[in-house]
């Protein structure tokens, strides 16, 4: 391996981690503010958190493969991907904390 560009699977799953971290927070906010939806999640797999986990893990895998197929290594350098992941996780974790502080 002598390539200076990232491989497509790394870009795909890196972007998926960033996107699904944000979607995970949005799903938390939506289910907490929509009791019937949360009840539906609970009845689907026995516990809302189990369904929540299944949804985000499947999404992470599916988006990982989709983004891997679409990725253009020349437009997603390691520096840009690193910053994207970092900010996505900060925003996701911060928004989650803010939501539970205010909820």
């Amino acid at each position: 391996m002598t390539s200076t560009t990232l491989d497509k699977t790394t870009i795909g799953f890196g972007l998926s981690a960033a996107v699904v971290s944000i979607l995970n927070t949005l799903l938390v906010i939506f289910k907490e503010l929509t009791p019937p939806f949360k009840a539906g999640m609970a009845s689907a797999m026995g516990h809302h958190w189990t369904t929540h986990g299944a949804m985000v893990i499947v999404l992470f895998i599916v988006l990982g493969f989709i983004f891997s197929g679409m990725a253009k290594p020349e437009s997603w350098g390691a520096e840009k991907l690193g910053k994207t992941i970092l900010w996505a996780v900060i925003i996701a974790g911060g928004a989650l904390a803010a939501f539970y502080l205010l909820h």
Partner: protein
Amino acid sequence: MSLFGIQASVMVHVLFGVLGILLAVALLVYILNLNEKNIPRIRSLSLYTAVSICLSYVIGGWWYVVYYYPERDIIRAGAWKWAHTFFMEWKEHLFFALLFLSILLPIIAYRNDLMVPENRRLLLIVTALVVIIGLAMDGSGAIISRGLVVGYQGR
């Protein structure tokens, strides 16, 4: 399951979580001292970290879904009800970001040339996030445990 089994299973969850953090810290040190000879160790550490965090998720998740509810009610009735309403809620959902980042570690380490400075920095960022979020999970778990003790004391 026996009371011992229930308590042992939650400790195994904590054990794999802490092991994952320690492995990620070791990985961080190797990335900071990266050379050609360290790369096989960096790759194996990235894989062990991911496996450890995944095991912590599966065991902790099973315990949470099956056995946490009675403890939750005790915490919520106590003076530290925020140990559940903030820390457990935050922990159980942010854990997914930790899970994805830990799975990303071996993908970065095995599929890219780590001697390229930008690739090394990417692995460094993701590893540092795993350590920081892992420590936050660990601290939250400790607060939740104390919340349960406070809940029992108030009975």
